[in-house]
């Protein structure tokens, strides 16, 4: 059943309109890709309305977000959910260490319920790992939490998945080494309990 959850999360496509403010610069509403502070800002690949792919730099932690690219974005940008990986809980530590951008790790261990006259449902724990390489103030951290849970709520709603609870585990580590990756010790985590139903 987790395979179906992951398939649905990976098939989410979100469109947001952009407003051109200068050659190669566009305003848009931020989403999950914007509510964190990368050590080495990645290049984001967004599709536009005509299916053209754009290599973009973006602003982080501010609203609206500014998207910078070399070409003209036609209409809006299309993007999906963060990368989703199914992992064993025992390997969570090693698998998350390479996360250099917000990444969703879904534990393979899950619970399912099957009843007559209802769709089978599953419940699973998932961790959104948000790498951090420099100290964030507690206020900045909590604002990232607020916006990231909003973004996750949007993604889960589109995938028809309920977030039963979500716990923000902020990072306070004065000895960050600016590796730019996830665990150990260099990530904020949004631990969620997800419930979904299988409609097939």
């Amino acid at each position, binding site marked *: 059943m987790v395979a179906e959850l992951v398939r649905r999360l990976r098939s*989410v496509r979100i469109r947001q*309109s952009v407003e051109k403010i200068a050659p190669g610069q566009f305003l848009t509403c931020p989403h999950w890709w914007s509510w964190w502070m990368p050590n080495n800002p990645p290049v984001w690949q967004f599709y536009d*309305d*005509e299916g053209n792919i754009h290599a973009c730099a973006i602003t982080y932690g501010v609203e609206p977000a500014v998207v910078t690219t070399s070409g003209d974005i*036609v209409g*809006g940008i299309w993007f999906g959910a963060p990368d989703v990986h199914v992992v064993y809980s025992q390997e969570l530590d090693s698998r998350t260490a390479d996360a250099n951008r917000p990444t969703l790790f879904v534990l393979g261990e899950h619970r399912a319920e099957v009843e007559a006259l209802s769709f089978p449902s599953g419940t699973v724990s998932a961790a959104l790992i948000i790498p951090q390489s420099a100290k964030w103030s507690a206020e900045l951290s909590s604002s990232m939490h607020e916006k990231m849970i909003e973004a996750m709520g949007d993604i889960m709603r589109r995938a*028809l998945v309920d977030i039963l609870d979500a716990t923000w585990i902020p990072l306070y580590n004065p000895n960050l080494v600016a590796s730019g990756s996830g665990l150990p010790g260099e990530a904020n985590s949004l631990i969620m309990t997800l419930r979904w139903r299988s*409609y097939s």
Partner: protein
Amino acid sequence: MALQCRCGQPIEAFGVPSCYTKMAPIVKLIFTTRVNQLITDPATQLELSPTNTNFPDIYRLITPRLDDVSSERPEAITEEIGATTYYVRDAARTITATVGQLPTEWAQRVAELRCQAEVGVFLVDANGTIWGRKVDTPTGVAGAPLPIVPSSIDARFAFPSYSSVQKHIITFQLPFTLADYEIIPLWNNQAVLNNSAPQPVGFRVFQEAGNWVVFLFTKYHAPNGTIVVPIANVANPADIDIYNASGTTLVASGSTNLGGGKYALNNPLTTGTQYILDCTAITSPPRTQFDWPALRVPFRA
């Protein structure tokens, strides 16, 4: 149609195929005015594109993802005479859709459907299956939209509370003559689940500083308190055409981009006269963002 008993009515076998499509929760509605258009090639005929000649309006009448869609059909209308119950007719099925977190202006799009003489709907479930109506034809069976009763269409905005978000509640009825067993899956296309309809375009045509001007704007406010959001720098302004009332003679075209969503016309109009504004040839901002193909509308100058 509801079953009409007749002499010699056969009783058909109860067997069912091993594999069949099950309905998942409905997550989108696709409205259309082509209620009686038959569907024999769903892959082509249900394409969400302005170039779809069978259903040219479904590309823009697909709702955003709905949060909850339910449907109820009351018990059939019967009459009791003495101790005997006589079936009279089926009751009408009501569909109720609730969607949260959309702009308040969105309800107008739904309410406008009530002004149409005929409206139909396709239901899209969580698996991307498009549901419609099964129609018996002289040569076999075809699909069609589910007819709805236009006068029953209602869109309400529910205020948020301390424990609930703002939401729209849409209700409409299917005609009582539509039997439940006529509802069938027509096609499966998961891409429909991620589809995003273009936004409608607002317009005004008026005189300003000696020019006749076409003003184009979006029908939604901007978050920063901008009530009117102009559509600036359309390409090409010359694609803004004004025809006479019959749509046969070109009267004026856009000539100058005045900025701020305003475009001057190259010929004057006559106040009080009926014309047709035609912006269907505009290509930028793209048609995926704004519904240019539908902007051919009458107006009075």
